[in-house]
């Protein structure tokens, strides 16, 4: 396909389907967010239907979940729901083919075809505009005629199937695991469809592994009150994190991240703090909701966050942040590249490649790539410093004391916050910036405002709310990390716990700011 054709093949109609059923579905479920009233009613229907089916009809239950997941996706875009289902069917067939063949060459070819298909679709929808626009600019700079106009990235973004980055990685890991004979290819089509389409993890993960999930689909589900309680608790925790914390912090951070040049230095620093809290509570809140919903349907998804902001170094941060992605990158990219084997330089090279591609995975913009590069550099720096400190026992001992650990936690948090400045998408054109603004441009403006004194607008809201929220998040981290919560939790009577859940939900509803915002990771 010529560049011109590729550039002009952007869909010319919106995601809404022409079929009456799908339009009705879209009205029923206008947003694919778990904390909306429409979704909760939809989920309640699925939940009741699912548990009404006798346990021995496990396959019927699975079909119910597949149908519900498909409809959930189709409510947003029927065409893309069919696309996801089709690629899933193809992955299923590739898996069966690999399993059926004993010829290693054929197996490898099938795996490569499967990976190419999945990555090809991901690149077409998510990165096409970015790469073509970059190519366009490069050709113009070289004095060549690109023969196509630059693409409207905002319009293209409407047609990116949601969750594509997540389920693409799930499909790739499945193909690789089957090829490595780590798992057998799934023979049941509905089970495989459920693995990819399962609605709690479809939109924004956690990225599940076939080995973990498919095993669960084979076990008939029993109603289990303990599991229900865990599900309810996680879901409510997620709702609170999203509505009461993340959306509230967005009120502080969003206007400043959009127009950093208008604000004073103090406000920009506080916006970075608010953004750090926001992005954590937004994504971990979403993950908690997803894991909670899965529990309510009798499935266990992998934990995605483990208090990342109390990490004492960047390596630990990546063991606690977006765990399902970082372990995926480790298992399917870093280790195949050579991992920590070989020379120090090879090791650093592997780290940089992994983190850079990890950054690009988050979004088609240079700002995300640089965010990955920055984390790669921090990881390298940490490894070097670790070697340096280990060669000096007194320094090492000092760093392990409470004070030393506190200092390392603060330093890690500071570095992570500085990197978050890079973690922002390009802005669409506005009156003030008719050509739009790249995330990188905004990030550079923010760094400039942060590291030199500037006058300007103050925070858009009284900063009391920001400090209270930051304090609350810190206390929660301390209480959990010290084991206080776990000890107390075991002793709390059920009714008191239930009352606490109700308080948590009502508090989330009351503290939700005026305008709720979308999930940050939804766009990935």
């Amino acid at each position, binding site marked *: 396909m010529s560049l011109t054709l590729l550039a002009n093949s952007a869909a010319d109609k919106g995601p809404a389907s022409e079929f009456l059923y799908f339009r009705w579905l879209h009205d029923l479920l206008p947003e694919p967010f778990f904390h909306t*009233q429409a979704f909760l009613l939809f989920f309640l229907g699925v939940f009741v239907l699912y*548990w*009404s089916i*006798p*346990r021995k009809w496990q396959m019927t239950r699975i079909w119910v979940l597949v149908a519900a997941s498909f409809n959930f996706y189709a409510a947003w875009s029927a065409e893309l729901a069919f696309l996801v289902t089709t690629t899933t069917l193809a992955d299923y067939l590739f898996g069966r083919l690999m399993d059926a063949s004993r010829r290693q060459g054929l197996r490898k070819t099938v795996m490569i075809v499967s990976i190419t298909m999945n990555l090809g679709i991901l690149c077409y929808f998510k990165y096409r505009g970015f790469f073509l626009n970059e190519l366009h600019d490069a050709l113009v700079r070289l004095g060549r005629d690109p023969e196509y106009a630059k693409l409207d990235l905002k319009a293209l973004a409407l047609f990116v199937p949601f969750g594509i980055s997540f389920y693409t990685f799930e499909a790739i890991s499945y193909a690789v695991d089957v090829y490595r004979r780590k798992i057998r290819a799934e023979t049941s089509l509905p089970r495989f469809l459920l693995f990819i389409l399962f609605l709690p993890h479809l939109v924004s993960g956690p990225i599940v592994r076939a080995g973990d999930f498919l095993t669960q689909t084979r076990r008939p589900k*029993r*109603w*289990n*009150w*303990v599991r*229900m*309680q*865990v599900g*309810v*608790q996680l879901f*409510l925790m997620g709702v609170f994190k999203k509505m009461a914390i993340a959306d*509230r912090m967005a*009120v502080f951070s969003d206007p400043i991240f959009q127009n950093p040049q208008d604000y004073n230095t103090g406000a920009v620093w506080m916006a970075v703090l608010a953004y750090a809290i926001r992005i954590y509570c937004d994504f971990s809140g979403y993950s908690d909701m997803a894991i909670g919903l899965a529990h309510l349907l009798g499935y266990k998804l992998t934990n995605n966050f483990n208090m990342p902001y109390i990490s004492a170094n960047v390596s630990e941060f990546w063991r606690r942040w977006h765990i399902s992605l970082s372990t995926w990158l480790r298992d399917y990219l870093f280790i195949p590249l050579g991992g920590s084997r070989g020379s120090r330089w090879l090791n650093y090279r592997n780290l940089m490649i992994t983190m850079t591609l990890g950054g690009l995975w988050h979004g088609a913009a240079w700002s995300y790539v640089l965010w990955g590069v920055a984390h790669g550099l921090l990881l390298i720096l940490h490894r070097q410093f670790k070697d340096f400190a280990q060669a000096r026992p007194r320094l090492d001992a000092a760093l392990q004391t409470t004070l030393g650990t506190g200092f390392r936690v603060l330093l890690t948090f500071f570095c992570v916050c500085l990197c978050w400045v890079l973690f922002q998408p390009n802005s669409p054109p506005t009156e003030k910036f008719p050509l739009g603004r790249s995330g990188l441009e905004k990030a550079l403006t923010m760094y400039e405002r942060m590291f030199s004194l500037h006058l300007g607008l103050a925070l*858009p*809201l*009284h900063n*009391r*709310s920001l400090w209270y929220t930051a304090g609350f998040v810190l206390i929660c981290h301390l209480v959990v990390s010290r084991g206080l919560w776990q000890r107390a939790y075991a002793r709390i*009577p*059920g*009714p008191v*716990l*239930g*009352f606490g*859940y*109700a*308080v948590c*939900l*009502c508090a989330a*509803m*009351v*503290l*939700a*700011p*005026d305008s709720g915002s979308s999930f940050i990771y939804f766009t990935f």
Partner: protein
Amino acid sequence: MTAAALVRSVVHPWSAGRTSARRAPAATGRRRARAAVLTAVVAVGIAHVWLAVVVETSRPEWRDPEYFHRQKRLTAVARWRDMNAPTRPLIAIIGGSRPQMGLSPEGLELGTGPTDPFPFDCVQSGAIPVGERLNLARLLASGVAPEYVLIEVLPPVLADPGPMEYRIPAPRLGYADLARLRPYHSDPGKIPREWARARVKSWYTLRVPLLANWGCADLFPPGPNRSDALWADMRLFGWSPFYPADWPAARRAVALDVARKTYSWLLADFRVTPVNDRAYRDMLGECRARGARAALFLMPESPTFRGWYPPAVRGQITAYLAGLSREFGVPVFDASGWVDDEAAFMDGHHLLGPGAEAFSKRFGRECVGPWVKSVKNEK
């Protein structure tokens, strides 16, 4: 567990607890989990029902703080009047943001004698005219019986084509308000449906007024949903003046432009719409039925604002008000041309504090005072 077993375990929770001693810890865990989940469901339900009942009964200001804080204040004033000065009549001023900012009841200077009236601003921004109708009905239903009712007319809004369903947000309404507003809605089922949906998640839909009432208004950025500035600092008799330290011409010009965009299209093709006509007729009719003396009044407008009226429209408005005046025997106090100083206004039609004081003094002296005196003389 099948659905039947689930129902059994909920209906007879003790049966699920009958386990052998060996399995006791697991059973305890299950019982605890079940108790937690069921308590949560029940508690959330109770919390929502409780809030829905409370905002209907003892705390209506949690759903509509701007009006009900005033009504509560007025009720207290009326109670004090009944105990200490029963011969002093009450003047209820019904209107929108113009009198809210621009008409000071104290500034009317109607005296403090044993038969001098108490004026009170029962006003609410944007409450014109269906909102005025609603607030008058609420006031009369609360048991407060004003002897005089001053009803504001905002001339451009007479031509508002509606639909009126969008003028008052459903979460603000009480159950009784639904019936009060039904005659003015083109789709009578719409607002009750929206209201019911809002009540189902009342902790969410009422979060802004709830937190404002609980002293945490600044958790929300200033915006259209935040009304605390319109009631938190109101004066004793309901007036909410605006005394900015500085109100430069540039800001006035921006605000004036907003006013122009809001009202000039209504004046371009002016026609009194039936729904607004009905609201005024219903208000005047109800005042007459209750034995309260009513008057219509127009607040001052700046020369620029007045310039947006085509000459024929001014005549139409005057003729319409004269018709109402004749039909219901009520006076019309047209103060729209009283203030020629553009700087006295925030945006061409909302008076700033000093302008409001001067206007109120004159309005009391030339309109309200003589009107009350003439009614007294009639009696």
